[in-house]
C-alpha cells in the first residue's frame, strides 16, 4: 500500500482511540466514559471468561446446518444493497483528499479494505461472544466470523464494481433480475420452512431444506465459514476449512483488484448521497424522503399554539412515512416471523412480542425526529415564538405519540390472528398503548432537553456517548417503571374497592397513566425553557 495511505490509516486508528476516550477533560464526561467502559467490560469480560470455562458441549451441528443459509441470505442482501448503491462508498474527507491525490484506484481500494479491518475485528469480537454456544473454541469462532465479515465486505465491493462495468441498460436489467431472483429464493426457502418439518416447527422445516440438494448447493460457498467457526481441532479442521475460507476471500479480493474499474465518479456520487443522508439524520430528519415535497396536513386548531407546532411535526411525519413504513414492515415482519419460528406453528404467545415491540418503539420514537429531538437545530426559532413553553412542549410530543400508537396497534392487529392470547388481554394491551406512549415520549423529550445529544453522532462512537446512552436508558426505564407501578397500584386499589370489577381497575389505571403523561408536559416545558441554545446545543 502507498506510504501516504499507510500513514493515514495509522493516524485514523490513533484518532479513533482518541475519540473513544474523548470527554475525559470534564468530570461529567469522565464519569460517563468510566460508566461506558465499565458496562462494556462487565458485558464482554464475563462472556469471554465463560467461554473459556464453559464445559457445555457446543451445538456445532445445528450451527453448521443453519449458518450457511443465513449467511447466504445476508450475502444476497449485501449484493442487492451494493447494486442499488452502484458504487464504493468513501467518506467525504477521503473523497476530497484522496481522489485528487497521486494514488492509483487499486491503492485506494486496498486502503478502503484496510481501514475497515479494525471495525470488522470488533464486529467479529462482538458476535463471537454470541456464537459461544456453537463454537468449541472461541478463537476459532472469532476467526471464522472475521473471515465471513470480510467476505461480505468484498462481495459488496465486487458487486458495486461489476455494476459499473456493465452498461446502463444491462445494469437496470440485471438489478431487476437479481432482485426478482433473490425474492423468489427467499420466498421458496421460507415457504419450505413454514410448511413445517417432521414436527411442524420452523427450524425443522429449515433443516429439511438445508439437507435437500438445492439447499446443499446454495449453501456451499458459505459452508467453509461455518466450519471454521465450529472447528473442533487446529488440524485438520481449522487448517483445511480456514484455508478454504481464506481462499474464497482472496479470490474475491483478486477479482476486485483485477476489475480496476474507474469507479471514482460513481464513488463521488455515492459518498455524497451517504454524507447527505448522515447530515439529515444528524438534523433529525433521517426518514424524510428526498426530492419533491409531497403530502400536507390541513391547519389544526390553535390550542394555545400547540396546534401549529403539532402540524409542522405531522407534515414532517407525513414525508417520513414512506421510508419509515419500509422499516416498519420489514422489522414488523421479522418480529412476527421470529415469534412464529421460535414456537410451535402456526401460533405463538402474544407476550413474546412485548419486548421487541418496546425496543422497536424506542428506536422508532428516537429516529422519527418528530419531536424536540428532530428540532435541535431549530431551538432558536422555537424559542423566539410568542408561545407558552407548555404549548410548544405539547405540540412537539403529540405527533410521535400518535404515530407510535398507530404503528403498535397495526402490529398487534396483524399479530392477533396468530397469537395464542385471549381477546381480553389483546384489548387491554391495545387500550394502554396510548397512555404508555405518552409517558414514554414525555420522558424521552424531558431527558433529551436536560441532557441534549445528537441522535446520530458525526464522529466515531465514544465510551462517553455509550455511557450517556446507558444512563439515559436507565433513567427512562426507572421513569416508566414508576409510572407503571403507580398506575398498577391505583388500578389494584380500584379493583379492591369495587369488589372485583376489572373494568373499574382498568379505567382507573388508564386514567392514572394518562394523568402522569399530562404531568410530564410541564416538566418538558420547564426543560425547554431552561435549554440554553448557546451552551446546550451539541456539536
Amino acid at each position, binding site marked *: 500500500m502507498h506510504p501516504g495511505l499507510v500513514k493515514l490509516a495509522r493516524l485514523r486508528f490513533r484518532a479513533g482511540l482518541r475519540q473513544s476516550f474523548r470527554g475525559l477533560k470534564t468530570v461529567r464526561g469522565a464519569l460517563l466514559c468510566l460508566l461506558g467502559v465499565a458496562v462494556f467490560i462487565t458485558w464482554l469480560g464475563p462472556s469471554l471468561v465463560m467461554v473459556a470455562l464453559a464445559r457445555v458441549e457446543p451445538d456445532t451441528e445445528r450451527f453448521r446446518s443453519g449458518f450457511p443459509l443465513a449467511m447466504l441470505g445476508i450475502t444476497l442482501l449485501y449484493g442487492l444493497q451494493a447494486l442499488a448503491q452502484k458504487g464504493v462508498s468513501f467518506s467525504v*474527507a477521503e473523497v476530497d483528499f484522496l481522489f485528487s491525490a497521486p494514488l492509483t484506484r487499486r491503492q485506494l481500494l486496498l486502503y478502503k479494505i484496510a481501514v475497515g479491518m479494525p471495525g470488522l475485528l470488533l464486529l467479529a469480537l462482538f458476535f463471537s461472544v454470541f456464537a459461544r454456544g456453537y463454537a468449541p473454541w472461541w478463537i476459532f469462532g472469532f476467526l471464522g466470523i472475521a473471515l465471513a465479515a470480510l467476505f461480505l465486505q468484498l462481495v459488496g465491493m465486487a458487486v458495486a464494481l461489476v455494476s459499473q462495468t456493465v452498461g446502463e441498460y444491462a445494469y437496470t436489467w440485471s438489478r431487476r433480475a437479481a432482485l426478482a431472483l433473490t425474492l423468489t429464493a427467499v420466498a421458496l426457502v421460507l415457504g419450505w420452512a413454514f410448511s413445517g418439518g417432521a414436527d411442524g416447527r420452523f427450524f425443522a422445516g429449515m433443516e429439511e431444506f438445508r439437507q435437500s440438494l438445492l439447499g446443499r448447493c446454495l449453501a456451499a460457498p458459505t459452508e467453509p465459514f461455518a466450519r471454521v467457526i465450529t472447528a473442533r481441532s487446529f488440524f485438520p479442521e481449522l487448517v483445511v476449512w480456514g484455508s478454504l475460507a481464506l481462499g474464497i476471500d482472496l479470490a474475491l479480493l483478486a477479482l476486485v483488484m483485477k476489475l480496476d474499474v474507474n469507479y471514482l465518479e460513481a464513488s463521488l456520487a455515492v459518498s455524497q448521497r451517504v454524507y447527505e443522508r448522515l447530515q439529515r439524520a444528524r438534523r433529525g430528519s433521517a426518514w424524510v424522503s428526498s426530492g419533491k415535497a409531497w403530502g400536507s396536513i390541513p391547519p389544526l386548531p390553535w390550542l394555545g399554539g400547540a396546534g401549529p407546532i403539532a402540524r409542522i411535526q405531522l407534515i414532517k411525519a407525513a414525508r417520513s412515512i414512506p421510508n419509515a413504513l419500509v422499516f416498519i414492515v420489514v422489522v414488523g415482519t421479522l418480529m412476527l416471523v421470529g415469534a412464529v419460528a421460535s414456537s410451535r406453528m402456526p401460533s405463538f404467545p402474544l407476550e413474546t412480542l412485548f419486548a421487541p415491540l418496546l425496543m422497536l418503539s424506542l428506536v422508532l420514537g428516537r429516529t422519527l425526529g418528530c419531536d424536540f429531538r428532530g428540532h435541535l437545530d431549530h431551538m432558536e426559532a422555537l424559542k423566539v415564538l410568542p408561545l407558552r413553553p407548555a404549548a410548544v412542549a405539547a405540540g412537539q410530543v403529540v405527533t410521535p405519540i400518535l404515530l407510535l400508537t398507530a404503528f403498535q396497534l397495526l402490529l398487534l392487529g396483524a399479530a392477533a390472528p396468530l397469537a395464542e392470547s385471549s381477546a381480553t388481554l389483546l384489548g387491554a394491551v391495545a387500550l394502554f398503548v396510548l397512555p404508555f406512549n405518552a409517558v414514554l415520549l414525555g420522558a424521552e423529550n424531558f431527558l433529551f432537553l436536560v441532557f441534549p445529544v445528537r441522535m446520530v453522532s458525526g464522529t466515531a462512537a465514544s465510551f462517553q456517548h455509550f455511557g450517556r446512552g446507558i444512563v439515559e436508558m436507565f433513567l427512562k426505564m426507572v421513569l416508566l417503571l414508576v409510572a407503571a407501578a403507580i398506575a398498577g397500584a391505583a388500578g389494584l386499589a380500584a379493583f379492591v374497592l369495587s369488589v372485583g370489577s376489572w373494568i373499574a381497575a382498568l379505567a382507573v389505571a388508564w386514567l392514572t397513566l394518562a394523568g402522569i403523561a399530562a404531568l410530564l408536559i410541564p416538566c418538558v416545558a420547564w426543560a425547554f425553557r431552561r435549554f440554553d441554545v448557546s451552551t446546550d446545543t451539541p456539536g
Partner: protein
Amino acid sequence: MIQVRDFHKTYRETVAVAGLSFEVGPGEILGLVGPNGAGKTTTLRAVAGIIPPTRGTLGVGGYDVVAQPVAAKSLLAYVPDDPRLFESLTVWEHLEFVAAAYRVGDFAAKAETLLRQFELEGKRATLAQELSRGMRQKAAIACAYLHDPRAILLDEPLTGLDPQGIRTMKDSILRRARDGAAVVISSHLLALVEDVCTHLLILDRGKRIYFGRIEEARSAFAQAGASPSLEEVFFRAIQPPNGS
C-alpha cells in the same frame, strides 16, 4: 501547464460541458465564472482526475489525466468548494498525511510556514471537527500548498474567510502564480476574479462563452467605447444576443 481540449461531459441526456477547450500556462491565473450549473465544478473535477471525460483530453504538466493519472495528480492540488476534513484528525495530522501522500520529504518547516501564513499556528493540535468554516478552508488550502503544486485548482476559495483571511488567500494565490504555478479559480465573486486573475473563462450551460485575457474581455464586451467592469462583461456575455 493545464491543457483542456474538446472536453465533453454528459450524464445520460444532460450535457454538463460541451466541447470546452482552454489552456493555463505557468504564472497565469484563470478565473472560471458562470451561472449555477454552467459546468465549472465538473470541469475542475475532471482536470483533477476525479471524474472521467465523456470525450476530449485533459492534461496537467504534459501528462494525460486519464492515461497517466498518478503523474498528473502529483503536480496538482485541488481544493473543492466546502472542503471536508477528517473530523477526528488534527490540523497537523492532516499536513503529516498530505506530506506522506505526495512524498514531501522534510515537510515540517514548510508546514510551519504555511500554518503561520494562514494564521493556524494556534490550531495545529485542534481537531478538524472543532474548526470554524473559515479555519477549515485555510487548513485545506495549507494542505494543498504543502507539496508546491505546479497546477492549482480552487473552487470558491474565499467562502467563510474573514477580511484578513481573504487578503492572505489573495496574496498567496498571487505569490504561487509568481513562482510559476498555473492557477484556476472558480468563483461567483467577480471582484476576486478582477483582483487576481490574468485570464477569464466564462461558461454558460456547459459551453464556452469567452476565453482570453481579462483586458481583452473588457474590449470585447465594451459598449460605446467605455471600458466595462467585469460584472458588466459577465452579464453581457451570458445574455442572449437579443437581450431577452
